[in-house]
């Protein structure tokens, strides 16, 4: 079965910090995050996008929310080239007392989005 969209992740060279963030999550939170990524990858963003990708205070940056022992906030952007067929995982953060940890998580994500947009072959890899 072919995927509905391609999921990429930011890759600025080793360490692959987005993958490392996911790998280091407790099993339960990693499973819940993967369900959402798999659901988007398999079914696309038409039906699920509005529910699974929550707006943030930063334009173009959305978050996949996982609430568990750790409040995981995977910061992502649609595209940045084709919002219907691509999704890019930009930065893995947590939330505590309604604030991102680290505090500048949104800025990091937006800086990465701009880098990916400037040269997709250099700054992102397929997330599988």
């Amino acid at each position, binding site marked *: 079965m072919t995927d509905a969209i391609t999921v990429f992740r930011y890759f600025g060279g080793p360490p692959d910090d987005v993958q490392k963030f996911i790998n280091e999550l407790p*099993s339960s939170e*990693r*499973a*819940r995050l993967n369900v*959402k990524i798999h659901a988007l990858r*398999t*079914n696309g963003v038409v*039906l699920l996008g509005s529910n699974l990708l929550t707006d943030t205070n930063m334009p173009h940056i959305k978050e996949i929310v996982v609430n568990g022992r750790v409040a995981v906030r995977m910061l992502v952007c649609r595209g940045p080239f084709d919002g219907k067929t691509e999704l890019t995982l930009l930065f893995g953060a947590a939330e505590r007392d309604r604030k991102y940890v680290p505090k500048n998580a949104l800025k990091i994500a937006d800086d990465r989005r701009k880098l990916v947009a400037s040269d997709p072959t250099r700054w992102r890899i397929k997330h599988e």
Partner: protein
Amino acid sequence: MSSVRDELKNSLPTDSEYRHAYADEILNLLVCTQMRVLREQRGITQEAMAAALDTTQTAVSRLERVNYSAWNIRTLKKVAKALDLRLRITFESFGTLWKDVQSLKRHKLERYKITDDPEFATAKDTTVEESAATETTRDFKVVPRPPKQIEMFPPGDATDIDQISSRDSETHDGARYALVG
């Protein structure tokens, strides 16, 4: 390229906590997404749904939210009744999880209304189908009707056209045509 199915084949058997959390999350996602899809399929607003469930629009919105997991069977039974559907609950093995991941599409989540359900086609419809079948066995041949003829006329040849039909018109290139019944 590895598929979601391959990923699940690798990750589910080895980690009990992972597979139970995965199954729990996909269930939440299926329930809330299908509730929204079915409500929209039937053209019911959240307000109307709230009235049927004797609750508030905010509560319906919360039920349809992906990160809400506090629903219970009693609530789901009420939702099923409001949508004129039945609720079915089964226990499943983990091997079918990837199918659930694939099923989060509108057309896979929609369900027939009782009036559209082919299982309950009316007796009248059944009679028509049966009589048609009988005619087929009698070597009834269906001959398609020939398409309506379109005759072209050079511009300005109005007399002939008026004689043939008043349903004449003008094409983009100025040629006139008339439908001949």
